[in-house]
């Protein structure tokens, strides 16, 4: 009889331990706490459904989720369009590998600073008396400062796109670099136009990269609170901000319940993306 082989279990143990200790246990804790009760200063071990009832029963929750989803959708479209274009340029127009590497590094330069700094630097730029408004008024393009530039949905989306486009560029660029150039040659030889090659050859082969980038962008936007708070001037809500508010009032169970709901929503969104694109095929 064959002896039981421990080796694969030992090999998988470190990763299983890391996942268990730093992912599974914390999430289980959140789920457990979401059923606890609380008052202003304490969280009380219990099994109550009031956290979920209050959350799901409030019209504010639905509105906030819809608002967050709206941000995610707009940011996704913008980052995809910009990210795909930049990746395409890097992968197919820049011919020398040296220049490709150099340009790619330039894309990452802003990421040497903290994302809070990158976000906040928009505030003096977009303000009523900011650089952009001063320039526009100086050029005579507008008579009055444009108010919508700062503390608005526009400002929130702008900051998100600025912060997260790189997460789209990297996986798409990676996918593009793996495309066999012979396929493109073959398509051109068979009489395809540049556009047809893009739509029928490159785009389908980039799907895994797009999917990975989309997962990054969507999950980041869905969980964000600081960008929404600063760029909307505290006027807009996001799910993350709701949780941050609850935590700042020590309403951890309410925040935990919200976290569980958000986790479910985001997992469903990721699952839907995985249904559309088989990521593993290309990895």
């Amino acid at each position, binding site marked *: 009889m064959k002896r039981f082989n421990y080796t694969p279990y030992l090999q998988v143990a470190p990763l299983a331990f890391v996942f268990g200790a730093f992912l599974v246990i914390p999430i289980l804790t959140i789920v457990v706490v979401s059923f606890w009760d609380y008052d202003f200063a304490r969280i009380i071990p219990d099994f109550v459904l009031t956290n979920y009832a209050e959350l799901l029963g409030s019209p504010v929750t639905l509105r906030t989720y819809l608002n967050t989803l709206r941000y995610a959708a707009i940011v996704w479209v913008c980052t995809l369009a910009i990210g795909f274009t930049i990746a395409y340029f890097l992968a197919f127009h820049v011919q020398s590998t040296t220049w490709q590497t150099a340009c790619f590094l330039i894309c990452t330069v802003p990421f040497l600073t903290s994302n809070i700094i990158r976000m906040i630097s928009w505030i003096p730029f977009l303000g009523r008396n900011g650089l952009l408004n001063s320039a526009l008024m100086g050029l005579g393009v507008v008579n009055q400062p444009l108010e919508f530039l700062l503390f608005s949905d526009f400002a929130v989306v702008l900051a998100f796109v600025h912060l997260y486009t790189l997460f789209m560029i990297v996986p798409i660029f990676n996918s593009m670099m793996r495309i066999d150039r012979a396929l493109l040659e073959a398509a051109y030889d068979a009489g395809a136009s540049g556009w047809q090659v893009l739509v029928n050859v490159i785009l389908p082969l980039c799907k895994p990269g797009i999917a990975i980038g989309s997962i990054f962008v969507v999950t980041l936007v869905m969980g964000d609170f600081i960008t929404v708070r600063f760029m909307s001037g505290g006027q807009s809500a996001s799910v993350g901000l709701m949780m941050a*508010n609850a935590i700042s009032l020590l309403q951890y169970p309410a925040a935990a319940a919200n976290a569980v709901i958000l986790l479910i929503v985001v997992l469903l969104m990721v699952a839907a993306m995985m249904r559309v694109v088989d990521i593993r095929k290309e990895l």
Partner: protein
Amino acid sequence: MGKDKMTGKPRGMNRRSVLKGAAAGIGLAAGSGAITGFPTIWAQNIKNVTLRQFGTGVSNLNAIAEKCKADTGITLQMTALDSDAVAQRAVTQPKSFDIADIEYWICKKVFPAGVMQPMDTSKIKNVDKIVPLFLNGKLKPDSVIAQGTAPHSVGFVEGKDSTKFAKSQTQWMTMIPTIYNADTLGIRPDLVGRPITNWKDIMDPKFKGKASILNIPSIGIMDAAMICESMGEVKYGDKGNMTKAEIDKTIAVMTAAKKAGQFRAFWKTFDESVNLMASGEVIIQSMWSPAVTAVKSKGIQCVYQPLAEGYRAWGGGLGIAKHLTGLELDAAYEYINWYLSGWVGAYLNRQGYYSAVLDTAKQHMSADEWAFWMEGKPAKTDILSPEGKLLEKAGAVRDGGAFEDRMGKVACWNAVMDEDRYMVQKWNEFIAA
């Protein structure tokens, strides 16, 4: 005695007062059997005591910690948090602090949780010189007690181990008042283009997209109530303890204004309010007094506008953690006595706040400074901040005038309501609307 201390050589006098404090401590500790020998070590030890103080940013000032170290030898470790975080930490991690520097409305939440110990006023030297506002709620004998969580109503407990607030003055004080002020709206006089006289002026359609209020629920709701009352939209029984219906009506008025685009932003931190005002994003908003000073020090006009309906006041104090005993407890009393002895009071008064014991603070201020900050008289010389920066040129008058005119016109104190949880929920709906 107190006067000698002020005018004498600071080092010698302070060492003496430390020794005296230590001696009192030894007596107490020896009496209670806490120590068994070598009492002379105490005088050395008190210099090595480190007290961990946490509180809101307003009074956690490094200059105070440095001066305290120089005068008493006690090391203060200060942590600044926002109001909500302070309340939570006090309750959930009562061993993480020795001194709580909190506001009275936070005290109302925190003290009943049994994480602090009342102070024996017989050990506080200047207790009878504390402004009566904190003892019986009245600035002058004929004053009317303001709405909200008035400090005197949570200033005393019934006994040494009690957590029940006393109706009147007792020997056991929950907190020693340190710093307080009357808040109102800040305006940019160069940009508003009309006189501002009432709280309701913030809702003037002329200021559409240029107004702001603060987004700290327990304080923001008070500003909102002052506004709604001034507009005549809502009548309140007690703004500091609203009914659910009053909260609903207040939030409805504010939400309508928000949807109409009246507000440019909501601020949560001091710096945000300064930036909003200095950049011209906002020209009328809820503000705190040092924020007005900060805007002015950038060379931008800003007025802390007195309004007909009066001020929304707040007050903070120092409380001692339950777990402090022996040497550390003595050091805490020593620190609090030092706090009230004048130097800090003068420092705070020069920032535009008020200190709890005015007599001692006066001795540390020049006659001109006192006249400007406390009596509302035109400055004879340039008025400098505690750090020596120019605040006001000679001839300037303080916004709102004299101490009695400002603290005498308090309409409401920052408060905790019975319907606190409901209010916070509604406030969040307003912010998300």
